[in-house]
């Protein structure tokens, strides 16, 4: 039994504590350090940037991207991509606006005004439905995620345009006598000084974080994103996992749609155009691998903050919109570069 004994000593020796490695720390915490750098830079550039009020405003912008990015994270962890979230956001916003106008039911000859909570639930269900279509296409019909969600991206946008004839719903306040007021609550109200939208983001982030790190589903998600056949053979219900992540991504988009139209007090069919790309960028900046299996909620939220605080900062110090685009693009490429640095070394040892 000498061989076994030897193996155990080897185990003991190499389990010694690791040295603190500054380079590694900087690399792994890159999104965090980038965020700190951004905050310091803009605080120096503008006295207005580093104020509580500005942070709250910026954070309520971040909430939109953050919600989309969390849904996107789940899909990307699974090794997929969801290009339809921007359109789903738009469609859901319009749908909510449509419900707020009152639903005319012809054969009853009456108009039905759903209350705010009914609007929220129905809108989330719509988001879930769009997500389910994506998920079923990808999981059961084996359509590549890129193509399937590109398709739903167009279809959802088209339906939004059809529903409004290209126009925007501006009457979202509701009327007290109809019992459907309070829509602007999501976008404007504060709880203990914190905008509701930010609270929604925090709640979704915490739930998401718990789900992917502490539940069986989370483990299934990481496993099927890392190696789907191995996960399948280990008894992971890979199709169910797939459908679920697209469904949840749709729900996140619906929430973002509600928050956005409430913030703007209007619901337009073109809202959220290209937001899917921002969401993907946030996830990538947060250190997730587009190949699946790697990524965290913390990283994604940091990624969303980096993008949000950067673009708002650029606006505040008066940089032109064209330059903003250039800066955002640079940050994304840098992030991917660092991702390949981090995963490149450990991935090549086969």
């Amino acid at each position: 039994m000498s061989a076994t004994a030897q193996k155990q000593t080897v185990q003991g020796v190499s389990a010694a504590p690791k040295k603190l490695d500054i380079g590694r720390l900087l690399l792994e915490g890159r999104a965090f350090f980038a965020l700190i750098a951004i905050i310091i830079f803009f605080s120096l550039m503008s006295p207005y940037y580093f104020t509580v009020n500005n942070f709250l405003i910026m954070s309520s912008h971040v909430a939109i991207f953050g919600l989309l990015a969390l849904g996107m994270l789940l899909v990307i962890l699974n090794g997929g991509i969801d290009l339809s979230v921007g359109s789903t956001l738009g469609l859901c916003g319009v749908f909510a606006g449509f419900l707020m106008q009152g639903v005319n039911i012809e054969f009853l000859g009456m108009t039905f005004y759903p209350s705010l909570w009914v609007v929220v639930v129905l809108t989330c269900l719509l988001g879930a439905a769009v997500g389910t279509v994506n998920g079923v296409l990808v999981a059961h019909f084996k359509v590549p995620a890129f193509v399937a969600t590109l398709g739903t991206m167009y279809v959802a946008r088209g339906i939004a345009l059809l529903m409004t004839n290209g126009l925007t719903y501006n009457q979202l306040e509701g009327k007290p006598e109809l019992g459907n007021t309070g829509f602007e609550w999501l976008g404007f109200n504060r709880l203990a000084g914190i905008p509701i939208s930010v609270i929604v983001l925090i709640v979704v982030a915490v739930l998401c974080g718990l789900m992917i790190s502490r539940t069986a589903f989370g483990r299934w998600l990481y496993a099927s994103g890392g190696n789907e056949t191995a996960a399948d053979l280990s008894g992971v219900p890979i199709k169910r996992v797939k459908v679920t992540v697209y469904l949840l991504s749709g729900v996140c988009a619906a929430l973002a749609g509600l928050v956005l139209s409430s913030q703007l007090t209007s619901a337009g069919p073109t809202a959220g155009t290209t937001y899917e790309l921002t969401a993907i960028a946030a996830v990538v900046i947060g250190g997730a691998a587009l190949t699946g299996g790697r990524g965290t909620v913390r990283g994604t939220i940091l990624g969303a903050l980096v993008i949000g605080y950067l673009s708002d900062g650029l606006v505040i110090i008066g940089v032109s919109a064209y330059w903003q685009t250039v800066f955002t693009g640079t940050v994304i490429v840098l992030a991917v570069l660092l991702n390949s640095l981090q995963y490149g070394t450990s991935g090549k040892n086969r």
Partner: protein
Amino acid sequence: MILAYDNLPTVDEVVLEARNIAKSFGNTHALKGVNFDIHRGQVTTLFGENGAGKSTLMKILSGVITPTSGEIVLDGESILFNNANEARAKGISIIHQELSLAPNMNVRDNIFMGREIIKGGQVDFAEEERQARELMAELEEDIDPLTPLEELRLGQQQIIEIARAISQKSRILIMDEPTSALSAAEVEVLFKVIRDLTTKGVSIVYISHHLEEALTITDHAVVLRDGTMTAYAPRKDINLEWIVRNMVGENFDLGSPPTGYEFGNTALHVKNLVIKDSGGGDYNVVDNLSIDVKAGEIVCVYGLMGAGRSEFMECAAGRLRAQQGHILLGDEDVNKLSIAERIQAGLALVPEDRQKDGLVQTMTVGQNLSLASIGEFTHKLLTSKADEDSLIDESIRAVTVKTSGAEAAIGSLSGGNQQKVVIGKMLATAPKVLLLDEPSRGIDIGAKAEVFKLLAERAKQGLAVVYSTSEVAECLSIAHRIIVMHKGKISAEFDHTASKEQIMAASGESVTH
């Protein structure tokens, strides 16, 4: 500069000399000052248990990784390779332990990947195809060069990997476990090719855990143990016992069928199973197969590659669909159950290809080990870290995985230890019937003995074990019963007193050694 092919291989000349090579990965010292010589026109075999550092040393010699310290002397000159291309330019090529092929490309393109034959600014596909055909003929393999790689079985993919290395016409050819998925007949052919190459002056470095097989081809034996070279000898001075003694310190045998208990009821009942060829061929890969395995019984399924062993097991596990027939676990028909439900019911499979089907590369050693038993440590929605850790610790101990800890990346383990993780993962699900497709692939003789001992122990506790192998020696170890498959059918059935020759003859294999 000495040209290849001009000298007789009897001249004992060292072409490459590695001096004092050390390599550390963080806290893991994979190599601790190794000296290693490669002789011109001869075969040098590197023996050593899993994680001894064999692959690491070979990756250094072929430029894939750089050593922490030490020197490589080629033709009397000290050199340093920064990457595999530089080594290839100097005539050194390597067949990696884990396949490095592109599954979506065809055989021809895989063989010439990165070295395309260019004529008039374009790839000369016709010439590539001709050469690929020649290579296939040389390796006596009936594979069309235009077949997509993913349609080939694992052994054939390994042949392609070998063909690619041979086609580079290198002076030094390193083969890291080239035969782990090959049948005995294919190994014969490979050895013929190796002998042919050595007469042309090509030097071969060979690594294998099939010790007897390696002894038939090698001229020199080097034993590595825990990153140091513990023994060296020319072929004439050594035998199997010498290798095993130097490798693991004591003589391991693969055990004998466990006795002293009664078998239970039938645990696995397979009746008239028919599986069609998935590649669209008009034949059945498994043809009217019926097997009964009792609780506590160990059955070995022997056969050549393509005999239908993998398909039978994959079908039982729920990965392939059967055309006809029944599979019963106890009295429960598993036909309609998903893979997950079969695992729940107690029917687990350890797949053949650990990279593709066994491991999740992005997860840690621990997460891989616990992957198939997540339900065990999930209480009311949330997973329990403490319960998971104890499950992982138990598994690591049960299959003796050599790792720096449960948090280590799975890719940092040596090939054999990765294999043990795959076995440990399925054992952790507490199965009633465990199917293992080539479980000894890539694991050293000590580990093999440990795995077999573990299986024998579990069998005593009532586990029904079915394992497949292409090594006759492994049939005659712990198995109570040996079933030989040939072209999808059972061609013979033996008890553990059968002889190697009987078993091989029944498999349709010519008895050569």
